[in-house]
């Protein structure tokens, strides 16, 4: 056994240990520990991906002294490696870029807890990605839910707690449905390990017994995961949660947390229920239609709201619709496109939140019209924001374009799905153009700039005089600004790279999905 095979386990445990040690540390040390742990995990995941890409196979790793149906086990392949890299990148960059937001918006004595929650979140996401056992999946879903709640309410204001409790209620409904689905699946198959369930379900489906029950189970588990990832009719918590929490929380929640559940859903389809059985239940149609409605309704809501961060949040709703639509196309190309879009959307949306944080500062409600001229004041942020917006719209050169291409491509020869998918992509793209161009035009508009400059001068004098209002420490330091700029640029470059050379990523995803079942 190669030593590299230990890496999935190491990365989970490093994050757990980092979470534990930040509990006893001060805020600076905690920040350092969390970032080092995430960076280490990133390195391990990269090595793992290179290794599995080389062998072209996946492997299982025993968690303990007992082999699979008895003990727990985790499984890693190329696809898992890429997902792990992607979550680590987003968590790490959001934390670095959000240093200022965390410092000024989170209570001093509780900042180490923020890093703790982030590490726990990363650990649980990694476990969700690697897990090969459905009950382990449930336990780590719960950690993820609680950590997500912590990320939302870390500001400790009434509004953020109200947003968090809404999120919790919706999420708990989702977990309940998922758990009862798992229980029913256990009672008809007698197994919890994904592979064993898959075999038993295949036998049951061949017999024709339990066909209706299997459909109900599949629907329950799918709806549970869809609720947790914020698919259209269940998206009501998203705008509040993303708009009110601190910036790194929004970036992580939209970028990786909701994506973890979708990845688990893909595992459910391919590894637990089995693609053919899943297809025969007809739940794909449900996902497909919900995805299309989400694409349109999310964009419409984004246009109607005037606030920048709420708009970005609604845009997330519509992009999650794209991903579900990709899964709902019900072929392997669709799944590849969906996973590709999980990654591109995660990178793009976190970039949008990171970049827009320089325009919004610490305020929750900034209107799009307030952005006038800010592009001249924050050139880096404005440029990266524009890049991200173009990527979401699906402008060629950017990763979002490739994702939309793959989605459209996957829907060919799928009967009515083709027309619906391509029509929805077209309509949603036009709507995206409407609201993102409004932002970009406002950003680069002339006129507001002079005013801004003046008020900035005033602020500076105020701060110098030690007048209260805005204390000196509220403004970002030079170092924080530079780091913020670097993070945004890195994300934009990754985005551009995927857009220009999508071959490697789509190749890894396709190969990874092939060894999935």
């Amino acid at each position, binding site marked *: *056994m190669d030593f590299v095979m*230990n890496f999935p*386990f190491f990365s989970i445990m490093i994050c*757990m240990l980092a*979470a*534990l040690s930040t*509990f*006893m540390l001060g805020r600076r040390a905690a920040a350092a520990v969390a970032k080092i742990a995430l960076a280490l995990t990133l390195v391990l995941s990269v090595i793992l991906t290179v290794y599995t890409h080389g062998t072209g196979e996946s492997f299982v*790793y*025993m*968690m*303990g*002294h*007992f082999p699979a149906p*008895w*003990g*727990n086990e*985790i499984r890693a392949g190329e696809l898992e490696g890429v997902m792990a890299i992607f979550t680590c990148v987003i968590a790490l960059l959001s934390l670095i870029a959000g240093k200022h937001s965390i410092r000024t*918006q*989170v*209570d*001093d004595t*509780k900042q180490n*807890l923020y890093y*703790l*929650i982030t590490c*726990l979140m990363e*650990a*649980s996401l990694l*476990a969700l990605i690697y897990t090969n*056992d459905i*009950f*382990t999946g449930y*336990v*780590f879903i*719960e*950690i993820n839910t*609680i*950590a997500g*709640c*912590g990320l939302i*309410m*870390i*500001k*400790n*204001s009434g509004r953020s707690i109200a947003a968090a409790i809404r999120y919790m209620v919706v999420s708990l409904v989702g977990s309940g449905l998922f758990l*009862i689905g798992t229980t*029913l699946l*256990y*009672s*008809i*198959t*007698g*197994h919890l390990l994904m592979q064993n369930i898959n075999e038993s379900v295949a036998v049951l489906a061949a017999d024709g017994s*339990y066909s*209706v*029950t299997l459909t*109900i189970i599949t*629907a329950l588990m799918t709806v549970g995961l869809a609720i947790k990832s914020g698919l259209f009719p269940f998206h009501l918590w998203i705008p509040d949660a993303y708009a009110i929490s601190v910036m790194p929380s929004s970036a992580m929640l939209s970028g990786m947390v909701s994506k973890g559940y979708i990845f688990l859903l893909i595992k459910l389809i391919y590894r637990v229920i089995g693609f053919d059985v899943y297809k025969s239940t007809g739940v794909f149609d449900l996902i497909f239609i919900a995805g299309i409605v989400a694409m349109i309704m999310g964009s419409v809501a984004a246009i109607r709201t005037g606030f920048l961060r709420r708009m970005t949040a609604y845009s997330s709703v519509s992009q999650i619709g794209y991903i579900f639509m990709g899964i709902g196309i019900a072929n392997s190309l669709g799944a590849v496109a969906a996973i590709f879009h999980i990654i591109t959307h995660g990178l793009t949306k976190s970039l949008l939140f990171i970049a827009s944080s320089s325009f919004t500062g610490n305020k929750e409600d900034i209107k799009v019209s307030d952005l006038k001229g800010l592009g001249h004041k924050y050139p880096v942020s404005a440029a990266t924001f524009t890049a991200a917006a173009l990527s979401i719209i699906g402008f060629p050169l950017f990763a979002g374009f490739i994702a939309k291409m793959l989605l459209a491509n996957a829907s060919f020869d799928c009967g009515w799905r083709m027309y619906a998918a391509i029509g929805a992509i077209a309509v949603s793209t036009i709507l995206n153009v409407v609201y993102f161009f409004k932002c970009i035009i406002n950003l680069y508009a002339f006129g507001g700039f002079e005013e801004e400059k003046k008020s900035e001068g005033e602020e500076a004098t105020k701060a110098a005089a030690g007048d209260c209002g805005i*204390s000196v420490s509220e403004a970002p330091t030079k170092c924080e600004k530079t780091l913020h700029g670097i993070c945004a640029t890195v994300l934009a470059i990754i985005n551009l790279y995927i857009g220009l050379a999508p071959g490697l990523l789509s190749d890894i995803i396709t190969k990874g999905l092939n060894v999935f079942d």
Partner: protein
Amino acid sequence: MNILMMILLTVLIICAVVVSFIKSLTASVIVFGSFSLVVAVIWMLLESPDLAITEAAVGAGVTGLLFYATLKKIGSIKDANKKEKKVLYRVFRITAGLLIVMLAAALIFCMFDLPGLFSPDHPGENVVAERYIESGIEETGAVNFVAGMILDYRAFDTFGESNVLFAATICVMVLLLVQNRGKKEDLPESKEYYEDLKDEKEIEPKIIKNDVILKTVAKVAVPFILMFGLYVILNGHLSPGGGFSGGAIVGSGFILASVAFGFDRMERFLNKKSAGIITFVSLLVYCLAKSYSFFTGANHLESGIPLGTPGAILSSGLILILNICVGLVVACTMYSFFSLMRRGKI
């Protein structure tokens, strides 16, 4: 299936319906407590003493206490039911009601389709369960097969579970912990929080200091509760219970002591610092021990941990240590939940 179980299950449904419709919150919490107690008896009838002891300690015990602490904080107001007259709202309600009926129909249909209950032909009775019992003692050294299963065979799940508890503790601390403020200026958001706290001084727990009955009962009961909790923790691999249920019992003993004798006296040995250190050290030991066993297991190395004689108190390798760690964490956590809810500090 016996008549007693059927009666108890019917009582469960009645309790659940009553809880949903009763107006007073205190009453609904009390009914919910009895609901949990009935569930504990049902676990006993289903031959799962581990679950029964956990449900009695956690569901009927600590959860109830947490509900009471909350009600005390909010002054147990009535559930005011206002009539909504918006058309859209009514449409939403009716649609939701239909969906619920559909869910109920689907689930009940599923239940009829499930394999017959209580029969040896159940799909769950397969090689997996067989090995847990037939080789359990040899491989884990635990006489209680459930303990062997959750702390050795499926230890990763259980490790995740203790992290759920840890994550929840952290979130509760973020929400409710009031720190001693230094010179540093408060943030506007948290300032708002401390101001909220100020006008609460009146509701601040007026611990019933003069209640003789409570004090006398506590003096007698607390040592027994703590002893029983410790017994349950230390015998987790031999008899029903284990770290979690024992920890919850110890924690509820602490809660009783703090209510009877005042938080100040508890604070002498269980304060933020000591609770933090105990939690940290136990979780660290847990994490390192399990990492060691996962690593050696996956790399096919000998773990070198002696399993001892099955049935002896010092046996079954890591299970005893893990039970102690979990017990300590849970005891501290349960007490901190209560203390944080009552007065904003540990």
